[in-house]
């Protein structure tokens, strides 16, 4: 299990491959990899967005991320997991978050990945401030549930 916060742009696919290559012993057992990548869009709520700043609470953010990944690993038989979250100034099309879960069976990998994403979205201290094409900046008010439509 690895949790990383980074203020630099990262390539999620390179990160996954590097992580797998460093842990070859596990690969033979992991039949299923479930991956989620959140990318910065160039619009939100109908308004063009030119960039974003991701604020966080150093210390608590890492602590809460590790907590939810540990919870996921206790709820499902996860072989390994990798979570990377961007902070600082972000441009459209850059990756914000990567969650990767390796498991023997696909159901566990899907469930754990989604659990981590929903817990991250609702409990881990990150805050987005968007720079708008039209009207300066705005803090994003709240995240919506990923289990409901919309």
């Amino acid at each position, binding site marked *: 299990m690895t949790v990383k916060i980074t203020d630099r742009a990262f390539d999620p696919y390179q990160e996954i491959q590097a992580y797998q290559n460093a842990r070859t012993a596990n690969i033979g057992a992991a039949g299923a990899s479930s991956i989620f990548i959140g990318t910065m869009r160039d619009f939100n709520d109908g308004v063009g967005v030119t960039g974003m700043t991701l604020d966080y609470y150093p210390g*608590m953010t890492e*602590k809460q991320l590790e907590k939810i990944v540990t919870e996921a690993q206790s709820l499902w038989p996860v072989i390994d997991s990798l979570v990377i979250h961007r902070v600082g100034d972000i441009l459209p099309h850059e990756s914000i978050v990567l969650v990767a879960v390796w498991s023997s069976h696909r159901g566990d990998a899907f469930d754990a990945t989604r659990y981590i994403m929903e817990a991250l*979205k*609702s409990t881990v201290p990150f*805050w987005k401030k968007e720079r708008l094409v039209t009207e300066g900046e705005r*803090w994003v*008010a709240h995240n919506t549930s990923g289990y409901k439509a919309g």
Partner: protein
Amino acid sequence: MSIKVFYFASLKDHVGRSEDDLTYTCLLTVKEVWTHVNADTALPGNTLAAVNMEYVEFDDMVNDGDVVAFFPPVTGG
């Protein structure tokens, strides 16, 4: 007792500061910490609170040396 207080994101903008130091002699709840350092600013209804980097309720007690944080709903991911 001595309490460190942090504000994040829109709440930092709202109170106009990123941190406060509070020294006090009585027992305090988290809610009372807010009231002491923000006498003129009502606590926004959706505010979250943490003590020593763990989520707490507003009627939980704080202890000497605790770090209290107030922040709006999180919007990461």
